[in-house]
């Protein structure tokens, strides 16, 4: 048992850290590494070649395709198109829909999508497309009546994320896909955060296209999938070769494809672990922190979210400072603060939910995986309150044990010149 106190840990030491940033990326499972390694060395063939070297790789890719198919509950393995990443899958889906239906000039999405979708839509706006961005309420939920009113023959595609990367909040994509289908509109979902954490059975849904990313489910970076329902009109992003049935040209990334197949098989075997063990650890972490730290709250919709994600807003302090102090204790998390992103702007997800700036900047995301242990969670529960207290001691918005705005006899509140 590790009896070392968290303060004695240094981030420079390898493998001693507690990794709670699994929505950013995940550790590649040892079994996955093992499965892919031969495809860097002896199994180097090109799957398209007419000889045994190519044939063996071709068969391995076929197996991987079936493993992905099984996790997604797709009807056919030919509905799985391997890409380089989630972003490529998103771009392929949206650009295909508008190219295949040039007469349709509208796109429906949400304000809280990943930049992979939002930036592309912004770009398409410049080309004359109308983009409807569905807004969310304080808990990150959509107004489906409004969504219904936007569906029309003008809409080329609806693209809505399955689970939000920052809060873990789930959108009712299955229901939304059916509504789109009734209106004769194509439906795409960015399920990068959902795949491997939730049971998915695409053959029973009306979802036409779905994006997933390997490195979010313990496969390596550089591999993704676009699920393309059979019969969905499609225009490829990359043209050139016949690979992926002409839907994504370029020699197959065979080692990573094999890895993703293995990762999907493992994810399927552990779906129950996510729902029970991971969710229980997440709840323990969240409660342990909220019980002790005043002026903190969970963002998003706690009753309807990914089992591994907890996003906690610590009021009156700033996220980057929290992360730097946690990092010093060997704990890795993420923040919606302006300063961590390099963009200098606070998270668009927090702003969309109307989280006040004093809290939005202090939002901290803890995202677990099936590799997270109970002991690690206890250590984080111990480490977080002093970090928050230390920063609040420095904050002009905080006074002893309460927000400065509630102080008595003081100049009521901190009022900077250009807040």
């Amino acid at each position, binding site marked *: 048992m590790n009896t070392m106190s968290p303060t004695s840990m240094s981030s420079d030491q390898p493998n001693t850290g507690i990794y709670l940033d699994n929505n950013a990326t995940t550790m590649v499972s040892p079994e996955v590494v093992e499965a892919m390694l031969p495809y860097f060395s002896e199994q180097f063939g090109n799957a398209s070649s007419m000889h045994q070297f190519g044939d063996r790789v071709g068969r391995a890719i076929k197996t991987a395709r079936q493993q992905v198919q099984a996790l997604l509950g797709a009807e056919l393995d030919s509905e799985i198109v391997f890409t380089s990443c989630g972003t490529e899958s998103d771009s392929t889906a949206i650009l295909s829909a508008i190219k295949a239906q040039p007469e349709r000039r509208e796109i429906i999405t949400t304000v809280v999508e990943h930049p992979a979708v939002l930036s592309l839509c912004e770009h398409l706006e410049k080309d004359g497309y109308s983009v409807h961005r569905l807004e969310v309420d304080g808990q990150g939920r959509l107004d489906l009546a409004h969504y219904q009113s936007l569906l029309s023959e003008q809409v080329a595609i609806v693209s809505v994320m399955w689970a939000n990367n920052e809060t873990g909040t789930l959108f009712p994509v299955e229901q939304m896909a059916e509504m789109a289908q009734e209106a004769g509109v194509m439906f795409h979902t960015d399920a990068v955060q959902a795949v491997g954490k939730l049971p998915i059975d695409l053959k029973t849904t009306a979802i036409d296209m779905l994006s997933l990313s390997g490195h979010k489910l313990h496969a390596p970076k550089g591999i993704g999938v676009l699920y393309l329902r059979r019969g969905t009109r499609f225009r490829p992003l990359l043209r050139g070769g016949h690979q992926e049935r002409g839907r994504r040209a370029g020699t197959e990334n065979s080692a990573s494809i094999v890895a993703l197949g293995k990762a999907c098989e493992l994810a399927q075997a552990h779906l129950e672990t996510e729902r029970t063990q991971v969710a229980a650890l997440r709840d323990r972490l969240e409660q342990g922190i909220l019980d002790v730290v005043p002026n903190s709250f969970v963002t998003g919709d706690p009753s309807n979210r990914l089992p591994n994600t907890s996003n906690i807003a610590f009021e009156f302090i*700033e996220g980057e400072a929290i992360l730097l102090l946690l990092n010093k204790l060997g704990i890795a998390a993420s923040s919606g603060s302006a300063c961590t992103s390099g963009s*200098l702007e606070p998270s668009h997800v927090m702003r969309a939910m109307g989280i006040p*700036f004093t809290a939005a900047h202090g939002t901290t995301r803890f995202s677990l995986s099936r590799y997270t242990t109970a002991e690690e969670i206890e250590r984080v529960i111990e480490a977080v309150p002093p970090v928050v207290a230390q920063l609040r001691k*420095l904050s002009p918005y905080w006074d002893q044990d309460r927000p400065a705005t509630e102080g008595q006899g003081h100049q009521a509140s901190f009022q900077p*010149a*250009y807040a």
Partner: protein
Amino acid sequence: MWDYSDTVKEHFFNPRNAGAVADSNAIGEVGSLSCGDALRLTLKVDPASETILDAGFQTFGCGSAIASSSALTEIIKGMTLDQALKVSNQDIADYLDGLPPEKMHCSVMGREALQSAVANYRGEVWSDDHAEGAMICKCFAVDEVLIEETIRANSLSSVEEVSNYTKAGGGCSACHEGIETILARVLTEQGRSFQPSAPPAKAPERQRVAIGMPLMPKRDQTSAPAEQPSASATVVAAVATAPPAISASVAPPPGSAALAAASPAATSPAAATANKAESGAKARPQLSNLARIRRIEQTIESIRPNLQRDHGDIELIDVDGKNVFVKMVGACSGCQLAAVTLEGIQERICEDLGELVRVLPEQAMAFAQRA
């Protein structure tokens, strides 16, 4: 992760003078919640000598905001108010052994809090009309409002010109698309159209790549930055590590304007340099070794004041055939844009010398001599 210096980390993990000074007689409060930074500075000032006896800070902000606040209080303790007001953002950044360019606004906040506190002590009201648009250039923290106003005031029509006037786009160039969008919008409003490859409307010497970095023009030569409210001009000057334009303040060598005009097809600075230098070489007689080195020295001397203004400097180390070895010191050493600076200096020396030379950092000496 940000690349913070050890001093920044030290001041973040162990901030000095945190908390309010108990019997303070000057308080400055500045900040912008939307950017996630706010700072209260409390000072205890000796009324007789106006010396700052004690200083304390309370900061809502990121690691570098806290470190900058800590540094500021350390710097100003013991200074008179007038001395303290002379502390620049660069002084704060220098004290911390540098800040990532994107984080320079954190030190701006410290300085503004100080101005606010001094105003408070003197019974004045300090106000900041911080008109901020969306951040376009993240390398130099230039926002949309400034870019748009500068385009209008100076009838700019190319990204390169915008970089020369505002520095925006002079770093990583990721924002060139954004600058083009602003240009297209403003030009359309003016009934003109944006042509990405159009030659600039200005005289050729304006187009010259300025020494060092994409530079801001002198305040008195262009109305835009001068018309900015003083505080936001401070922001720009502070964030920008290189102020006035040499391109405009140094008279071009005789013939260079004509040469540039004669080769409008030369689009890249390098190509322009080569063209100019080759034409120059034909026109000028060969220099003796001594005269040649003296001329190189003169050119470098004329550049130094501009670098010193940004707390940088340059020394001539050696001249070996076509290779001119220099040493970048102060803020120039380790600057992201040192390579751009060298390129600009190389262009100047090529022009003044009338031959093609390579300006290299001294670290390249061993390698170049072997080669």
